[in-house]
């Protein structure tokens, strides 16, 4: 107790600093069928300790995915739920929180007004995140949960979460997501598309299966689903299935796993039941019962394509991922991890288009070295550095379509591809930077470029300026130049390279591609080899 502490401090000349008290934090997640919150304590070095989890069914997805906007009654329900959550947060003295909304809010036409009302009435600032951020957060929590599990060493594991608005699917190799994307398998959307179907249940299930099959075929074009030997499933619907199938005979703390056959059989069985039976039998809320079968059918179809013998169903949520962001000693570590995952995923995309990996790697290296040396000049941040690196990796993938005007093909391919952890806005930046790695510099007539806002265009110019030079330094694709350093001299920047061999081509190319650099950074550029002073 408090008294003894005082005495002991006198006996010990150098008391160890007391550990800082845990912080109380909250994560709020506005999903398609419910608003949920979790309140937890985070202490340095420890996993978050959950104090409370609350959930309130609010059918945001049903509104957005049918009518494109959130209806008045749903807005009110959401406000009431969040008011309550705020009370709960206050009762724990929560100091930091992160509240996010996903597709059901993101895609609503009235989202700005909606978020404004939330802010005014509850004081909660909701951040709308896109699929890639959602993916990243969830993946982070999966990794935490499955730490040490053999599935993270798997050659190919499919990570699937079927949500209300879409399905997030990643293909993991050695635990790193190398392909990832959000696909039109949202359970609410699927359910809505069949809402007016008046035929029998059998036929309805058939239609659903066909729809799912078509989309899964598209997914297979983007990632090698059938190479997956392991299957990790997230989401309320699959957790429900696991609870029904698995019973509770497993050691405390282990990750629930259900056998492939049991799962397939369960989904077949449950899909034959009418809605009323589901509600009655499993005591499900109507909203949950409506999405259960479409979601489970999607998991089933994906599972069938893999060779996985069982499904792992870790109890992982987006909120768990949000909480990890608060853990004090995880922050830096998390970002490095994240960067590695993004780059691995970009490399996988490159492979898909048969890129020159060695060239891509050296260009990325040189571009980021220049970026770091010019930090004070360009004022860009770590995230933009990562985008530059991704653009450097992918700048040549347009060659897959045609070597002629390949920079334009690169731009198009990147703009329609997924890279784990990057949002559509990120990909727009990357695709533009890649486009300007050769030939013409940005022009007002370039539509994709002009679609960016002004600040972003400025950033693209800076990044493209560096990429152009970096690419020129490996103009022969033989990696003669190993490293580069940008040295400031009176009125110019010197590109100082470390290299083996003759560099005439490189010098010429680099100086030719310094056009944008000079325009952006306002100084002339010269070229020299390291150790050779003029």
């Amino acid at each position, binding site marked *: 107790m408090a008294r003894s502490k005082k005495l002991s401090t006198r006996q010990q000349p150098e008391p160890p600093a007391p550990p800082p008290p845990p912080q109380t934090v909250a994560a709020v997640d506005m999903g398609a069928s419910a608003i949920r919150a979790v309140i937890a304590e985070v202490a340095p070095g420890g996993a978050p300790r959950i104090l409370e989890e*609350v959930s309130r069914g609010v059918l945001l997805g049903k509104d957005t995915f049918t009518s494109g906007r959130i209806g008045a009654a749903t807005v009110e329900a959401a406000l009431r739920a969040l008011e309550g959550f705020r009370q709960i947060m206050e*009762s*724990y003295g929560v100091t930091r929180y992160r509240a996010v909304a996903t597709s059901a809010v993101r895609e609503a036409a009235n989202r700005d007004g909606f978020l404004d009302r939330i802010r005014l009435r509850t004081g909660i600032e909701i951040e709308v995140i896109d699929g890639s951020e959602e993916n990243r957060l969830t993946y982070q929590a999966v990794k935490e949960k499955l730490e040490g599990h053999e599935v993270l060493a798997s050659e190919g594991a499919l990570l699937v979460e079927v949500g209300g608005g879409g399905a997030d699917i990643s293909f993991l190799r050695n635990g790193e997501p190398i392909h990832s994307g959000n696909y039109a398998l949202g359970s609410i959307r699927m359910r809505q598309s069949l809402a007016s179907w008046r035929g029998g249940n059998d036929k309805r299930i058939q239609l659903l299966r066909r729809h799912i099959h078509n989309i899964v075929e598209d997914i297979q074009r983007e990632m090698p689903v059938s190479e997956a030997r392991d299957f990790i499933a997230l989401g309320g619907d699959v957790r429900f299935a696991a609870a029904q199938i698995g019973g509770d005979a497993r050691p405390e703390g282990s990750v629930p796993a259900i056998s492939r056959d049991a799962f397939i059989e369960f989904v077949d069985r449950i899909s034959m039941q009418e809605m009323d039976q589901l509600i009655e039998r499993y005591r499900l809320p109507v909203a949950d019962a409506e999405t259960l079968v479409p979601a489970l059918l999607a998991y089933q179809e994906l599972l069938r394509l893999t060779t996985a013998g069982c499904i792992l169903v870790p109890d992982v949520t987006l909120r768990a991922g949000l909480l990890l962001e608060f853990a004090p000693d995880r922050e830096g570590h998390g970002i490095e991890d994240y960067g590695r995952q993004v780059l691995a995923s970009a490399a996988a995309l490159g492979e898909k288009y048969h890129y020159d990996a060695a060239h891509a790697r050296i260009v990325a290296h040189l571009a980021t070295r220049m970026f770091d040396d010019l930090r004070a000049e360009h004022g860009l941040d770590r995230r933009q550095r990562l985008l530059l690196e991704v653009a450097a990796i992918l700048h040549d993938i347009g060659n897959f379509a045609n070597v002629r005007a390949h920079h334009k093909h690169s731009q198009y391919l990147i703009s329609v591809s997924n890279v784990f952890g990057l949002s559509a806005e990120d990909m727009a930046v990357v695709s533009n930077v890649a486009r300007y790695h050769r030939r013409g510099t940005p022009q007002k007539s370039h539509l994709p470029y002009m679609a960016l806002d002004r600040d972003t265009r400025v950033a693209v110019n800076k990044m493209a300026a560096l990429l152009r030079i970096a690419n020129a330094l490996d103009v022969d694709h033989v990696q003669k130049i190993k490293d580069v350093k940008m040295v400031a001299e009176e009125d110019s920047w010197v590109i100082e390279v470390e290299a083996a061999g003759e560099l005439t081509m490189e010098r010429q190319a680099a100086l030719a591609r310094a056009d944008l650099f000079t325009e952006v950074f306002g100084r002339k550029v010269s070229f020299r080899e390291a150790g050779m002073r003029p």
Partner: protein
Amino acid sequence: MKPSGGSRKREPELFLNRELSWLEFNSRVLEEALDGTNPLMERLKFATIVASNLDEFFMVRVAALRQRLQDGDERPDQAGLTPAQQLSLISKRVHEMYGQLYHVAVEDILPAIAERGVRIVRVGELDASSREVLSRQFRADLFPALTPLAIDSSRPFPMLTGLSLNVALLLAPAEGEDQARLAVVQVPGRFPRLVRLPAGDGATFVLMEDLVKQELRELFPGQPILESAAFRIARDSELDLDDEGGRDHLQVVEEELKKRRKSQVVRLEVEEAASGMLLDTLVARLGVRPEDIYRIKGPLDLRPLYGFLGLPSLDDLKDRPFRPVTVLAPRQMENIFDTLDEQDVLLHHPYDSFDPVAALVERAADDPDVLAIKQTLYRTSGDSPIVNALARAAEKGKQVTVLVELLARFDERSNIRWARSLEEAGAHVIYGVRGYKTHAKICLVVRRGSRGIRRYVHLGTGNYNERTARLYTDFGLMTADAQIGEDASAVFNAVTGYSDPPRTRKLAMAPTMLRERVIELIERERRRAEAGQAAEIRAKMNSLLDEDIIRALYDASRAGVRIRLNVRGICCLRPGLKGVSDSIEVVSILDRFLEHSRVAYFRNGGDEEVYLSSADWMPRNLDRRIELLFPVEAPECRQKVVAALEAAFQDNVKGRRLQPDGSYKRRRPAKGEEPFRSQVHLQREAERALERSRAAEATSFEPLKTPEGLGGR
């Protein structure tokens, strides 16, 4: 799983009728009034309780049966009795009960009290000067408040308030007519029923209705009065009262139906002296059925006699004053959070005082590390230290959430007043949960300690009410168990509407989970018996009505589980039926303190489990209430509950045993057996426990760990 209603077998022979079972309960209360070994004033108290219980019973239960009869609903209840059959059995039983009640009140209790100088006299028996004083007082105060109502067939019968006292009189026929006319005077309820005479030895009272009768001539000047008699009616109250005097709004009552029911008189009590002619006229106008007429040999409405318990001169005729003991030392209450970090605390009221509960809320209000207090308040008083502490906490900026159940008391206005004052202090007050009554008694304190957030929870079987905590037997558990704390948060989130009903781990909540949980536990015991293990269930509650649970108990009995139940009030389970309930024993304790705790014990193959609950095993509680069932896990706490539970089954003084036919047999000490009265025993045990802990404290030396310890504190 709950079997659906339709598929349920009808086996009326397995169940007792709830109304008759309730009447059995009331007759056990009456037995206490009759019992000459009880102190006189306690007997008077029991007599007034019998009377007040009957009032409620007519307004609620009899009225509902009457309504069903009128609607042509002849479906039998689970015991196979139609509404008509039930009403006729009720009338018969209540008539007997009235006979006994008035016999003991008028012939036994009141004369004995009169010997001590407290008497009720007739105005006619007073001397002229006293009558003159009364008469003057009447004309000054009462007369302006009286409205004489002449009744004739051209006007509708006036709407008399249910349970009010009235005087009916016959006036001589008017000129040219041959029929006596009926008139009614309502005795205003805001004047005391017992009018104390200003002078004289001891305390002499006259009854208000007697006084009114004496002065009728003033109200009907010039009209000859043939006779007069006091009467009282009971009407449908449209309210469902629960075991704690709270009320339920009946589900969906249509306006029309309401009006019709309101006009329906379900009982007429009338002075025995009323003539046939007066009674016939009155009955015809009120539309009362013959079986609902009760002719009373004594004062109508015995409830006001309860006021005699407030006369200091009669104090020696009451139970010995009783002091609850406080299980925690002042130091432990001062540091209640440290105390609860180390141990769970189980309180058995009224033997254990309520102080530790008040201390928890008060400390929570003043402790700077406490972030939030959440509490249900079902019946409490405005000046309660708990309400004051909650207001103080809110003023200090702590998050205070109070769930107030407004349907809980008749005096809603005073409830609203203190609820408003809590709101003004900054508390978040929630007035009930739509569609459900919040009956759970739970208090949650969230505190930030040096190692993070900790939750402290009090869970009880009785209300946060210091007064009833001295009169009702209830259990309370105080704990810092993390899982219970987490569940408690979830429960509050659900009842405040912040979250959908949660999955709780240790607590089971009605209406979502409680019945299932109880049935699961009963079935687990049955399976153990079937597997050849010793199996046993003990439970205590106020009422046992739920058919699903009763059937589960029958199945358990058939499998050989030993089942002992202590059910104070209604019990629809029939014990001792061959092949059904051979191994079930039911007792009921009626004594000084109102038995109110709800407990369940399961042997569970030797790994005993004990649960406490706010809920009776009644459909109403399990389906339309927010209720809680919670485990008592600390061994010493569990032991205390088990010992208390066991004591009731040993009681051979105030214990009664339910017979297979639904009657109760009072237990007597067998030859050579010592009388054992469980409430007295538990009182002594509590005192002994306190002495033991004091002795332990006196012989142990607490080391002083800091120089502070040497100072004043």
